[in-house]
Each structure stands twice: as structure tokens, then as C-alpha cells.
């Protein structure tokens, strides 16, 4: 594999794409976000169970490319058990990593998520990786949801959880 392509399709990312973690529906979810990327047709459903300020459980389903699936899979691994504040901070770091917006203060903080770094060199693919992260952000702040960064997001709070 040529070196640049290896940067994008790192083995870790491909493992997540082939065998995504937390790839399931969740009956006990307190937030369900449906995300859709109209540019490529990728769709994703993100399930969260919030217990107070903590994301007690998180899972996803959907169909998308390797990058979108891997990004969502890594997201669930990393976010499970975190507080809302920590998750929002992580959103900002990952967003900066993917868009190459600014150098990260401490990229080491991202751990396995650094496998997504190669995406920043592919402007046409960045939205594949950000779909699940925008869905997460919407889940945490359902009030400000709508069309975000060209992605369609809609949050549902199951009646039993209101």
C-alpha cells in the first residue's frame, strides 16, 4: 500500500470498519440521533443512555464507508462512561484533528482516535468521519440541533425517558 493511503486506511481504522464495536440498537436509550449525510447517502443512528451527567452506554447502527463506520466505532469506545463535559471537549479535539483547523495542544490525549488523523488530507472525506461526532454533539445538546455542517441530524428523546 502506498504510504499516503496507509495513513488514511490505518490497520486500526480498518479493524474498526470490519468489526465495529458497540454496533447494536439500544432499548434503554435516553437519546437517539439519526444522522444522514446527503452528499454520500451514509446514514447512522446513535444511541445514548445518560445517567445524570454521565454517558452510561452508547451504541450505533447504520451503513457507511470504512471511515464513517470506524469513526463511529471508535467514538463509542472512547465516549462510554465519560461525562457530558468530557465528551464535548473530545468533540472539539476530534473536530480540529479531522479538519486540520489548528494544531492540537496535546495530540497524545486522543489515543486511538489519532488513527483518524489521515482523513484531514482528504477534504472530500472529512464529513464521512465527522458524521458520528456531530450526531454525538446533537445528542448532548438536543436544543440546538438542525442541519449542522451539511449533515442532517435529528434527535429523538424516547417518551419513557422524558
Amino acid at each position, binding site marked *: *500500500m*502506498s504510504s*499516503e*493511503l496507509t495513513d*488514511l*486506511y490505518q*490497520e486500526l481504522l*480498518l479493524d474498526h*470498519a*470490519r468489526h465495529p464495536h458497540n454496533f447494536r440498537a439500544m432499548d434503554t436509550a435516553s437519546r437517539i440521533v439519526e444522522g444522514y449525510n446527503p*452528499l*454520500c*447517502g*451514509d*446514514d447512522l443512528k446513535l444511541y445514548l443512555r445518560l445517567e445524570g451527567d454521565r454517558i452510561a452506554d452508547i451504541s450505533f447502527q447504520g*451503513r*457507511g*464507508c*470504512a*471511515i464513517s463506520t470506524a469513526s463511529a466505532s471508535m467514538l463509542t469506545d472512547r465516549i462510554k462512561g465519560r461525562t457530558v463535559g468530557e465528551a464535548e471537549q473530545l468533540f472539539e479535539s476530534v473536530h480540529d484533528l479531522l479538519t486540520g483547523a489548528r494544531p492540537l495542544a496535546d495530540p497524545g490525549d486522543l489515543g486511538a482516535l489519532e488513527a483518524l488523523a489521515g482523513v484531514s488530507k*482528504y477534504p472530500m*472525506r472529512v464529513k*464521512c468521519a465527522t458524521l458520528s461526532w456531530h450526531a454525538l454533539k446533537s445528542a448532548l445538546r438536543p436544543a440546538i440541533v438542525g442541519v449542522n455542517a451539511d449533515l442532517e441530524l435529528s434527535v429523538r428523546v424516547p417518551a419513557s425517558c422524558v
Partner: protein
Amino acid sequence: MSHPRPIDRDAMRAIEEQILASSPQTDWDVQAVRRDFPALHQRVNGAPLAYLDNAATSQKPQVVIDAVSRYYRRDNANVRRGVHVLAERATAAYEGAREKVRHFLNARSVREIVFLRGTTEAINLVANGLGSRWMSGDEIVLTRMEHHANIVPWQLLRERCGVRLRVLPITPAGELEPERIAGLFSERTRLLALTHVSNVLGTVNPVAEMVQVAHRHGIPVLVDGAQAVPHMVVDVQALDCDFYCFSGHKMFAPTGIGVLYGKEALLEALPPYQGGGEMIRRVSFEKTDFADPPYRFEAGTPHIAGAVGLGVAIDYLEGLDRKAAADHERRLLHVATAQLREVPGLRILGEAPNKVGVVSFVMEDVHAHDLGTVLDHKGVAVRTGHHCAMPLMAFYGVPATTRASLAFYNTPQEIDRLVEGLHYAREILT
């Protein structure tokens, strides 16, 4: 990483040679034609460009690029207004291009040729014009394989005046069944609007036959010809369609210029689309007399340079042996189809016997966008996504496909590189 079957290059060559040997020899000198297209001669990601995205837009021959540049360097002026020399030259060039389009489509009169931005605008114009007289409950018949450009304008009309959309299904091979069309017609049917060639499947539809059936029911027909004109000679009188639309940029002309052909009596009956300069006879604040077609539909300063470029693209096409070009494309399509069938896990969508050089496919366990990125790394440009035909994607139960679309300047070696790229993508992604 899995260990798929290695690429058997000898077997690939054997398939290719067998097909090339069994199909008619052509006099097509592809290398000579390629020299006319400067954009083909570049390296992308370290590999020579293999441009297989012609259904999205074609590359432009040097003569078209030069014509646009020459127009701006020498003749630039507004059309049909000034009395000075440049205005005369610009008008002559613009109206000359209209005559070339008339000849290209074999229309009866230049009054039947309207210059617009492209196919999309042409369909919107007809939808607005015809729709202004339609009533709630009137019906339009479309097909399952339409591009969004031939779906959404009719849906907007549905919002406005309550027309109903009826959809002709397709077969799994991606063909229309003309004998089923009459079953969709009713006394409320106002129009049949269908594509000449599918932008996803490459299927060439039996338009002349369907026009005959529609006309027997007194129904006019609009044909979306965007994917047909680059590949075949189109004769609107032989088709007997009432409207025919196409875009310049898919047939080697600039972007932003396209054509609506309409039978003269039908265009005369259509109200204006946009108001402004150039589309009027006389204006006062009380009343405006509109110009006759085609000018009634060309409000504002048109894309003069684009029309000039389109005229030269037509000259270029007509200067080629179009039968040899079509034979060459057909041979490439056969090679591509046979080789793609050998790629493990690959499924081709659309296997109509009568196709132009468009092949859409999906690969098991690999998303189209990942294929597109890997192919791009090898210098192979293809389109990935829903191709603005989401109802067709839904029919095949896929969110997206990868599409290779050919032009007469493509080569068997470029097909080889596509296929090798797909094997490679499979190797690293599955």
C-alpha cells in the same frame, strides 16, 4: 487482512484480447483523438490520469478551449443590441451556434432551439410553462431511472398545483418495458418525461417507440438527452419527441450552456420563464409584449461564450467518424463488463443489451467512497455516490454505487487500470 485471489493479469489480457478480436475492427485512432484533449495528459497522485467520469462531465478539446478564449479576446460584446462591429460579431457567433445546434439535432428551425444553462434549467422551464395551465389531479408519467433533474421540478409543480406523479417501473436488468407505458396513461395524463439514456445504468431507452405510444394517447413527451448526445447521433424529428434537453458540458463543450429543443407550436404556446431584457418586444409599465421563441425564454445576457464553445464542440463531434467512435466505446464497454465480472464480490447494476459506455457496480463489503479514494490514488477518476438518482438506488437496494463512464478517448489500458485498482482496493479494504 484477507488474502483474496491474486490478480491474474494474463487472464485479464486474455479476456480483453478475445473481446477485441471478436468485435469489429475500427479505424478509430484513439491516440490521435486523445491529443485533442489537453486535460487527459497529466499525472494524478503520481500515475497517469485515467478519466472515467465522463457521465459527470467530459473533458474539452483544445478547439473548444481556444474558441472560448478567442471569443473573449476578440469578439466580446453583448448580443442582439449594439450596432457596432463587435456586437455584430458576437451576435453572429451566438446565432451561428444556434444554427449548429439545430443541425446537430436535426430540428426544423432555429426557433425551436433555446439556449439555457443546461438540462436541469430546460426541464424546469418546461415544468413551469406547461404546469401553469395544469390543474390539480392532472398527471405526469416518469420512469424509475430518472435523474433528480427530471423528478424534482415535477415535485415542485405538485406542491404548486397538485399534479400527480406516476412512475413507470424498470426490470432488474435496468430496462423499461414500453408495452407497460399505456397502462399508466389516463385521460388526465399531461406529459411523459423520460431519460434517453440512464446516467447510472447506461441503458438506452426505446424513446421513439414510447413517443409513438404516448402520441397515440395525445400525450406530449419530454426527453432528457443529457447522457445521449455525447454517445449517439440524435434526430429529434425521427424521435418525434416534443421537447429534448441536453447540457453542453457532457458533450465536450463548456459548463453553463445547454439546450432546450421544443416543437415550434409548443414553444409558442409556453409563457415566459423569466422576465427581463432580450425577451421582450415592447415594454411599458402597463403592458409588455413578449418576444417569440426562442428569445422569449432567454431573458438577460446569455452565456455567449458558452454557446460559441458548444457550437465548436458540435463542429468537433461532426468532424469525427461518429460510428467509429461509438464502435470504439462499445468495445471498451464489453472489455470493462467482462473484466469487472471477474472481480470477486463485484456486482454490476444494469445489464441491458442496449447500453452506452456506463458501468455502475457495487463491491461486497466495500463502500463506494472507499473504492473511489483508492482508485483516485491510482490516478483513476470514477464517480461514487447516488448519482442524483436516489429512487433508482432504492430499487437496487444500495445507498451508492461506483460508476465508470467512458468517452471515445478512453483506452483498454485505462480499463485495465480500473480493474487492477479494484483488485487492489479489495485486497487492502476487506
